């Protein structure tokens, strides 16, 4: 019954800034583009895959079957089933875990995971009172009842509603939450700007080296991640004004991720299927876990992954020393800094119910080809960007090399996973 779920590869489109080159592309368009690139790279045209799972954080109501519709638009066989999953910024990793679990259980032998988000083509909806009035009117049995419902419409109901970027329970945006965390953990501006600079320089180097040539397919004339600034520096970043945490804040547009558009996919299969179809095997999915913290109760919103990582490592009998590479999603530079600090904080980890601190890592194994600060962060796509990137890096380092992924997500949640080169 138990199979090795392995990463064969991945494909994404270059990520770009909101209202940039993909301003006219919908989630459907971008997800289809990423899928078709994957199909082309791995010769899957007309193939029936076990299942495709993807999702978007900002989703139009008409996109209730976004992934299935993208599959139908793609070159995959039309009888490939699909479903939408959503786990905020962890979506691309959650869909990977979902597909990998089905493969491990023998329910499917191949599948594709992914995620997409467009902050340019974000859904605008009618106000809650107007929606309720319209629903009442459409349920009315007589014209008179319908008119009665419409008579309740007030001018203020007509203002359209853009999706909110705030946590529903706290009214704070993710950046404002992270600003509280940044201050509580004493993260400096320089620490954050150094992380941001490194992200841009490492991503630029990886593009320079051709690392992404078999991971990314150009789209709408964009051939490289469009947010990337190879020439940025701590000095340049130091000039930016704080955007979160008030005038004394340390978080800027340079050390926070930009609103982005993009899509990413991962090709997964059982080891047997991969061999049978002469597909490369980069790494196997070893384990994963999702955790959450009580952010309405005051816990650090973006430190959800710490408990997940601690429990997963304990279960696997592993420590941080057992990892050749670590990927911590750069929602903000300070998320990376606080995650590293939290890993090494005995009291904090015990407070989470762990046996103790997780420890430290050699900075040289962290986000070695850059991360979301430089690449951009189309929310649901990021996990599906990280998985194939890490799998390829691990394969280069040789069999048995392990990698750890840690992703924070809205709602005080976090998704973590372990990959191991086969």
């Amino acid at each position, binding site marked *: 019954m138990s199979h090795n779920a392995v990463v064969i590869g991945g494909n994404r489109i270059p990520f770009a800034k909101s209202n940039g080159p993909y301003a006219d592309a919908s989630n459907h368009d971008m997800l289809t583009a990423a899928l078709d690139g994957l199909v082309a790279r791995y010769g899957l045209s007309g193939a029936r895959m076990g299942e495709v799972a993807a999702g978007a954080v900002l989703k139009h109501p008409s996109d209730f079957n976004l992934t299935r519709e993208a599959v139908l638009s793609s070159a995959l066989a039309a009888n490939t089933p699909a479903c939408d999953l959503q786990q905020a910024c962890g979506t691309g990793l959650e869909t990977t875990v979902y597909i990998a679990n089905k493969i491990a259980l023998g329910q499917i032998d191949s599948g594709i995971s992914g995620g997409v988000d467009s902050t340019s083509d974000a859904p605008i909806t009618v106000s809650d009172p107007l929606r309720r009035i319209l629903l009442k009117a459409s349920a009315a049995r007589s014209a008179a009842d319908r008119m009665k419902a419409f008579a309740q419409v007030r001018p203020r109901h007509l203002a359209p509603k853009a999706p909110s970027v705030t946590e529903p329970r706290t*009214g*704070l945006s993710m950046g404002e939450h992270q600003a509280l965390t940044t201050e509580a953990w004493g993260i400096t501006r320089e620490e954050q700007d150094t992380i941001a600079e490194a992200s841009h320089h490492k991503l630029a180097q990886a593009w320079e080296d051709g690392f992404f040539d078999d991971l990314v397919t150009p789209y709408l004339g964009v051939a490289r991640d469009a947010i990337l600034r190879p020439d940025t520096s701590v000095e340049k970043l130091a000039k930016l004004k704080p955007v979160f945490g008030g005038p004394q804040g340390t978080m800027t547009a340079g050390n926070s991720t930009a609103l982005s558009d993009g899509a990413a996919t991962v090709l997964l299969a059982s080891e047997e299927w991969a061999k049978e179809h002469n597909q490369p095997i980069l790494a196997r999915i070893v384990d994963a876990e999702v955790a959450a913290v009580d952010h309405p*109760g005051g816990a650090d919103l973006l430190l959800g992954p710490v408990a997940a990582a601690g429990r997963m490592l304990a279960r696997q009998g592993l420590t941080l020393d057992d990892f050749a590479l670590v990927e911590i999603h750069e929602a903000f530079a300070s998320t990376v800094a606080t995650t590293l600090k939290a890993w090494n904080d005995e009291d904090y980890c015990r407070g989470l119910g762990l046996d103790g601190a997780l420890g430290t890592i050699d900075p040289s194994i962290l986000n070695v080809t850059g991360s979301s600060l430089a690449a951009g962060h189309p929310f649901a796509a990021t996990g599906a960007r990280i998985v194939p990137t890490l799998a390829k890096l691990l394969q280069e380092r040789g069999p048995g090399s392990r990698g750890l992924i840690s992703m924070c997500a809205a709602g005080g949640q976090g998704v973590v996973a372990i990959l191991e080169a086969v």
Partner: protein
Amino acid sequence: MPADTIVLESMPSMGGAAARSLVPSRDKRARVPSSTFEVRDLVQETARLADYARVCGFTLRDTVPATWLHVLAFPLHIQALGSQDSTIRLMGAVHVANRMTMLRPVSVSERLTIGVRADNVRPHRRGALVDLVADIRSGDETVWDGVSTYLASGMTAPGDAPDGSHEPFEAVTPHARWRVPARTAKDYRRVSGDPNPIHTNRLAAKAFGFPRPIVHGMWTHARALAALEGSLGSSYSVGVDFVKPVLLPGTIGFSSSHEDGVTTADVTTKDGTKPHLRMRVEAVS
């Protein structure tokens, strides 16, 4: 049933009693009627509960929040203080504190008997305090009780006023921030029926010394309780002190902490330096 219980046919409408209670009393000695005012077999309206829940931030559940039961009892507060025997006028009085206990979960489909009496008139350095004591029964079982304390400024009551200073407040770092648009008071008036114009009318607010309308204290209370809704047990008691009104429109901060089965929470200015409302929630076993 105590001899002096006055059973009303239905929940009184608040307009008339409220208008009467706007007329100041000539007698400055605080006096309240001894009767209990009661309404039996009150049917709760699901649609109104849904509206209330949306306005205050609660999830619409089969079981109702404690503050909703206060709203159901509120017309009887006005009734109790609107009678001839009362010299305290609710409209001019300030709601300074509220305590209530949810003795067991109450379903929206239960018919409720609600009784309210005014009691415990006592002196305060700025006037007289009075408690509106309410209990709610389902059949013979008391399921909720509440004490709302009002301050009637300028009124007198026998005895010496105790030192009424609040517990010192230490600044907090809010971990939530709520924008409160001016509409909130209109919305809350709709769901609560509280017609006090101080919340919705600029002139009325000015007449009572506020530069702008203030949101209903019981909205702020409900909003803060709603923020804790996931951790409220099946029975709990909650007490609040209304320290400083929230001007509309405004932005407020919220912070909470939990220790030994007691949750304390503060609604503050958005920077956390000054309190609007202080709340304490305790599980009842």
